[in-house]
């Protein structure tokens, strides 16, 4: 039991990071019906930016994160703007376009930061907390808190602000949204920007948990996507639950299958998609003639 709980605790912080990645995927998918395959690379960019400002310019961790989020947000804007001509036309081409951006970002990362990775020291130096015999790292708690805060802010933005409501409206019916005066392209751009910002947040937070390297985003991206699908694509609570579930699954497979953990995670993910493509909270879609 103790081991079981400890495994869960071990997976939660990474799960929170996956949840942030999943939120970014979901937000873009909700508004544009597009899966951004460059999302994982944006996570890596975020991780490098945050760690660079944190390590070399000695900016406080929080401030380094803010810089990372702003820069990646701008990257998100660029991606959306370039691919905008394909919106609502050819989704497979858009998908490949985002892969293209992923390739470009990957190259830029290696050019700027080199092919080797870096370890980022935890910004919180306190000893792990002991709770009923469970060891909980303080940084894990920080990650959880920030992820929760980001989620709350996102939900508030979507539900309380005019712009947030407009973004949801665009997702539901872009023609009706146009008719009430919403600029659909701008709304999509903002969705993309926020998605990229969330990716950077995830990247910045995961730096001290994992080794920051050009390969970081690949696995994070796919697991974040798995989380988004698991929860039901486009659903915010789904993304959170999906993220935590994948994090815990990760933690278990790492314990039981060691090196093969990725293999098992992806196989489980494939089976889940086959059984229920719409995820736990997803809606069924119908074919239209």
């Amino acid at each position, binding site marked *: 039991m103790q081991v079981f709980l400890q495994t869960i605790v071990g997976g939660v912080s990474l799960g929170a990071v996956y949840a942030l990645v999943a939120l970014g995927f979901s937000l873009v998918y909700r508004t544009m019906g*597009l*899966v951004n*395959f460059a999302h994982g690379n944006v996570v890596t960019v975020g991780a490098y930016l945050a760690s660079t400002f944190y390590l070399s310019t000695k900016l406080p961790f929080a401030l380094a994160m803010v810089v990372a989020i702003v820069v990646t947000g701008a990257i998100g804007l660029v991606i959306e703007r*370039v*691919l905008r*001509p*394909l919106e609502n036309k*050819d*989704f*497979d*081409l*858009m*998908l*490949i*376009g985002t*892969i*293209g*951006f*992923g*390739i*470009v*970002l*990957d*190259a*830029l990362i*290696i*050019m700027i930061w080199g092919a080797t990775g870096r370890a980022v020291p935890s910004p919180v130096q306190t000893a792990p907390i002991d709770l009923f015999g469970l060891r909980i790292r303080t940084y894990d708690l920080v990650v959880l808190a920030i992820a929760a805060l980001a989620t709350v802010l996102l939900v508030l933005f979507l539900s309380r602000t005019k712009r947030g409501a407009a973004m949801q409206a665009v997702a539901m019916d872009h023609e009706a949204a146009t008719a009430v005066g919403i600029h659909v392209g701008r709304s999509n751009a903002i969705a993309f920007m926020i998605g990229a910002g969330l990716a950077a947040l995830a990247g910045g937070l995961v730096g001290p948990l994992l080794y920051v390297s050009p390969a970081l985003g*690949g*696995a994070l991206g*796919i697991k974040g*996507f*798995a989380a988004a*699908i698991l929860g039901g694509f486009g659903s915010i609570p789904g993304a959170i639950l999906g993220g935590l579930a994948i994090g815990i699954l990760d933690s278990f497979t790492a314990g039981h299958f*060691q*090196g*093969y953990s*990725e*293999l098992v995670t*992806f*196989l489980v*993910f*494939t089976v889940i*998609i*086959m059984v229920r*493509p719409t995820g736990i909270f997803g809606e069924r879609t*119908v*074919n239209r*003639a």
Partner: protein
Amino acid sequence: MRTKLLVGAALAVVAWFLPYGLDSYAIHVVNVILIFAILAVGLGLVMGIAGQVNLSQVAFFGVGAYATAILTTHAGLGFWVSGLLAIAATVLIGIVIGTPALRVQSHYLGIVTLGLALAFTNWVTNAEVAGGAEGISGIPSPELPGVDLSSEYLYYYLELIVFAVALAFGLFVVRTALGRRMRAMRDDALAAGALGAEVPMLRMTAFMLASVYGGLAGVLYAGLIRYVAPESFNIANMFLLLAMVIIGGRQSLIGCVVGAISLALVREMLVDHPTIAQLAYGSVVVLVVVFAPTGLAGLPRRARAYLDHRRGARGTAAQLGAFQPYEPAASASGDELLAVQGVSKQFRGLKALDDVSLTVAAGEIRGIVGPNGSGKTTLFNVISGLYKPTRGRVVFRGTDMTGRAPYRLARAGMARTFQNLRLFGDLTVEENLLVALDRSRTLSAWRYLLRPLNVLRRDRALRRSATDVLHRYGLTQFASLAPKSLPYGIQRRVEIARAVAADPALLLLDEPAAGLNGEEVRQLAEIVRSIRDSGRTVIIIEHNMGLVMSLCEQITVLAGGRVIAEGTPSHVAGHPAVIEAYLGDTGEFEGATR
């Protein structure tokens, strides 16, 4: 055609003498390029031709190479035996990786196949049998009596022959029935299914084809490098391969080869600056998808279109011919052909169909009319298998077909057209018809391997039938044009011709007169009557009441998802419930019309 053959022959000669001008490093580079070209053809088949987003091609490559390595070094089998077994193993993996395509498409399929590719690298990096991160070395080179294949110069010829055969086979598939059906499925899976294409089977076939090419490339790679390691099959190489196919033009196998060769050459030139190369091809991929989605292969056509446009050439001068009526067949039995029994269809809150029943006799032309949103198209979708009814049954030719897949209904003798036209956009008019004319099962694709001549003969017979259909519908001059370039009225006619080409007993027409002018509507009526007289049954949804009234013997009126009237045109037109549904209220109009 002749120039193409000449170019092909010239290229073959150049390829044959190429090694004489190359040093040992250059020939190695060429050998690697050929392997990538084979991989690209496979990826082009599954992605460009069949439209299945497959990010696992590099894993197929890896399975082929690793299986060869393991079988030769651990099991001590000979290279050729190992190679054959390796390809068999790759096909098995191809089936596994293709399975998700039965359930998900597009983005989802992309991410699943990418995940499975990562799972593969994860496995080889960890598995002892695969040598872990160090990989496997000491793979023997293939032995061939009298030929020393450990020489890269001679190995080149082995690769060249395999590549030529692989490319020729790919082109053979693309240009005959199987490839046509795959392209139809890529353009519009729904319409392809409604014409009888077994979509699930086709998707699996596409993945199997891709895996054969992947496996083949893997075996050749193992024999060439004689060493395999995980990093050769990583995601970066998958994306490189994808870039080759996209830049070359995914819908053309030649384009894929050109993309593979040119990108590999560029990468070779920038071998000291791999990240710059990566940056460059990544950017080109983005530019290509936005500005030239058909890639390099599509450039000549785009250039021609542009020049025509500059010269002010006005579309095509092709003329629509007159419709040649069918030979009347013995009048149909009048037995019940289709029975819809108590069908309801619920979409979340909305009841689109509510206890709808109707029977249609063989040889009838039945009209289905009703105001907007009354459930007409939903009824068609239930009948043709696109929707499963919430309640009720659909009996076709005495068999309960409720909830059967559209392709099964099509094979049972049902064909339909769609309200918004669903022609296969990237196929020519003739190919659209060919897809419908081809009634073979996808399973019979084994003929491609064992009886290619039989395939060719069948294809020629199909083309002859297509010529007949084109002629009958007056479409001969449009045969080689893309449907999208045609006037709307002609597209409508193509869609009807395509549906009838599938030789249905029951033809469902969904608003065939929408967007047609008066003369075209008159021709349509003539066509539909002739189709019926040839022994088929027609159900027609239409808003053009003049057409329905003059064409149909029986009319069913839907409103709010229910049948509100049924009978002869005059009966229906005088029915108070119909007048209310159409005009609002009966009372106000009675005085006026009497």
